[in-house]
C-alpha cells in the first residue's frame, strides 16, 4: 500500500474545481503502470514480515491475499471508478460540494495527520537500512521508543533531507519514482528467490512444504497475536480503503477514459500486495532462521542479508519514495486549511511532525494496525460520496447538498463521521472486534446514518434546519 506517488504530481494536478475535459483524459497504460508502481513501496517491506510474525498459516496467507486483493480491485472498479469518471472531480472538491468547505477543512487536517504518520513509518524503515554501516541498534517487534541517540540522529537526518526534497523538487521525485519502480519490483523477487535455498527450497516443488513448515507456519512469534485467514483477507481488502471505498482515488481516476480502468488496480494488488508481500515474508522467515528467531525487526538488515547493497538501497529508495510524496501531499491538504501560509512553510511543519513521529519505531511495529486505522478513519467520507451519488435521489435527498443549498458545514456529514467512528470504537472496545474487521460494518453504518441525518436535518424543498 502506498499513497499516490506517480504521474499524479502537480504538473498534471489541474482541474481542481472543474470536471476533467475529454482532451485531458488518459488511456489505460498510464493507470496500469501507475498502480503497479504505486503499490510496490516501502510499506511492503514491513507488511509481508508482519504477517509471518503474526503466525499466519500458508494456506490462510495465500487464500486471504488472493480473495482480499480481488475484493480490493472490485472496490476500485465498481465503486470508485464509476463515480470518478461520471463526476471527473477531485475528492476534495467532490466532498466540498456535498458537505461544505468548512467540513472539508476538518477532513484535510485528519488526512494530513494520517499522511504524517505513514510517512514517518517509511522514514523509520529507511533508517534501518541507512543505519547498517553505523552498526545502529535496530528496533525489535516490541520496541516503541527510540532505540538510541544514533537512531534518532539517523531519523532526523533522513527526515530533514526528505522534507527538503519535498519542499524543493517534487517533480524530480516523481520522475525518480518512475525509474525506481521496475527495479524495486525485481529486487523484491530476486532477493526472495536467492534466499529460498537457505530455507530448504531447491526446486519449486519443495516450496509449498517449506512454506508451511518454515515461513507461514501458523505459529506467531512470542508476544505477538495470532492472525487468521480473515485477518489477511480483510487487511488485503482494506489496507487501501482510504483510496477505493474512501474515494481518495477519485482524484486519479477522474482522468480515466473509461470506468473500467478501475480494474487496472489489479496490477498494484497482484505485484505489490501479492508478490512483494510474499517476497518480504520469505526474507523475514530466512532472517528468523539465521538469527535463531531474533525479535529484531529491521527491513534494512533483512534485505541486506538477502541482496547485499542492492537490497539495502532498495529499502532506502522504497521508504524514501513513499515518504516524500506523502509529506508533499500532507502539505497540500493542510494548505487548503491555511491558504495564507506559504507552501514551503506548511511542508516544513509537516516534515517536522513526520520526522518526530519517525523517531518512534512503534509506527513500524504497529503498521498493520495503523494502516487499518487510516482507512477506517477516512472511510466514512467515501461512504458519504457513494450515498450521495447513488442513493440520495432515490430517497428524496438533495444531491451535492452543500453546493446546491449553499451550506458551508454539513452537520449530516459531520455527525455521520462521528457516529460511524464512535460505533466502530464501541465494537472494538466493547465486543473485542479487531480493527481489521470494522471497515465493513462501518461502511453500512456510515451510509445509513448519512441518509437518515440528511433526510432529517436537510429536508428537500425546505430551508436547512441547522
Amino acid at each position, binding site marked *: 500500500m502506498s499513497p499516490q506517488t506517480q504521474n499524479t504530481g502537480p504538473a498534471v494536478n489541474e482541474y481542481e474545481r472543474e470536471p476533467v475535459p475529454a482532451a485531458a483524459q488518459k488511456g489505460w497504460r498510464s493507470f496500469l503502470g501507475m498502480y503497479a508502481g504505486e503499490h510496490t513501496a516501502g510499506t511492503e517491506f514491513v507488511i509481508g514480515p508482519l504477517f509471518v510474525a503474526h503466525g499466519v498459516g500458508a494456506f490462510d496467507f495465500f487464500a486471504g491475499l488472493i480473495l482480499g486483493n480481488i475484493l480490493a480491485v472490485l472496490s476500485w472498479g465498481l465503486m470508485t471508478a464509476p463515480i470518478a469518471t461520471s463526476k471527473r472531480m477531485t475528492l476534495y472538491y467532490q466532498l466540498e460540494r456535498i458537505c461544505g468547505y468548512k467540513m472539508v477543512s476538518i477532513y484535510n487536517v485528519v488526512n494530513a495527520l494520517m499522511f504524517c504518520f505513514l510517512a514517518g513509518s517509511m522514514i523509520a524503515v529507511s533508517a534501518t537500512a541507512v543505519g547498517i554501516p553505523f552498526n545502529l541498534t535496530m528496533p525489535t517487534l516490541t520496541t516503541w521508543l527510540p532505540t538510541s541517540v544514533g537512531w534518532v540522529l539517523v531519523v532526523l537526518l533522513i527526515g530533514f533531507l526528505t522534507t527538503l526534497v519535498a519542499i524543493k523538487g517534487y517533480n524530480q521525485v516523481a520522475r525518480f519514482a518512475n525509474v525506481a519502480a521496475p*527495479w524495486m519490483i525485481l529486487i523484491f523477487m530476486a532477493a526472495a528467490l536467492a534466499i529460498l535455498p537457505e530455507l530448504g527450497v531447491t526446486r519449486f516443488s519443495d516450496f509449498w512444504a517449506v512454506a508451511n513448515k518454515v515461513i507461514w507456519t501458523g505459529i506467531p512469534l512470542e508476544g505477538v497475536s495470532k492472525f487468521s485467514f480473515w485477518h489477511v483477507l480483510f487487511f488485503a481488502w482494506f489496507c487501501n480503503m482510504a483510496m477505493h471505498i474512501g474515494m481518495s482515488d477519485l482524484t486519479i481516476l477522474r482522468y480515466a477514459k473509461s470506468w473500467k480502468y478501475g480494474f487496472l488496480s489489479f496490477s498494484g494488488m497482484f505485484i505489490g500486495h501479492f508478490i512483494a508481500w510474499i517476497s518480504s515474508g520469505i526474507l523475514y522467515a530466512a532472517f528468523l532462521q539465521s538469527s535463531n528467531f531474533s525479535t529484531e525487526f529491521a527491513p534494512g538488515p533483512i534485505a541486506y542479508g538477502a541482496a547485499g547493497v542492492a537490497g539495502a538501497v532498495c529499502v532506502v529508495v522504497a521508504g524514501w519514495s513513499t515518504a516524500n510524496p506523502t509529506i508533499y501531499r500532507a502539505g497540500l491538504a493542510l494548505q487548503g486549511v491555511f491558504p495564507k501560509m506559504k507552501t514551503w512553510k506548511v511542508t516544513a511543519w509537516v516534515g517536522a511532525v513526520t520526522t518526530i513521529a519517525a523517531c518512534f519505531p512503534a509506527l513500524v511495529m504497529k503498521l498493520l494496525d495503523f494502516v487499518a486505522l487510516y482507512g477506517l478513519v477516512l472511510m466514512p467520507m467515501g461512504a458519504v460520496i457513494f450515498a450521495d451519488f447513488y442513493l440520495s435521489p432515490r430517497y428524496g435527498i438533495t444531491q451535492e447538498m452543500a453546493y446546491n443549498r449553499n451550506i458551508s458545514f454539513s452537520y449530516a456529514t459531520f455527525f455521520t463521521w462521528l457516529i460511524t467512528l464512535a460505533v466502530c470504537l464501541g465494537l472494538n472496545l466493547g465486543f473485542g472486534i479487531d480493527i481489521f474487521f470494522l471497515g465493513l460494518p462501518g461502511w453500512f453504518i456510515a451510509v445509513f446514518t448519512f441518509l437518515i441525518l440528511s433526510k432529517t436535518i436537510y429536508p428537500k424543498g425546505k430551508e436547512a434546519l441547522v
Partner: protein
Amino acid sequence: MKILLIIISYIGLAMSIVPSVLVFLGKIDMQTNTTLMAVGMVLWFGTSPFWINKKTDKDNAADN
C-alpha cells in the same frame, strides 16, 4: 546513443534478477549474486533516467 542506454539499462535489470535465479539453481554463490546485483543497480540507475521518463511522457501523449 539512446538505444545503447536502453540496452545497458535492460542489462542492469537482468543483472538484478538473473543471478538470483542462478543462486536458486545452485550455479553461483550468494556473494557473487550480491555483487552482480549491485552492478546491475548501478547500470540501471546510471542509464534509465536518461530515457525512461521521456518514454513515459511519450506514452502519456500517445494515450491522450
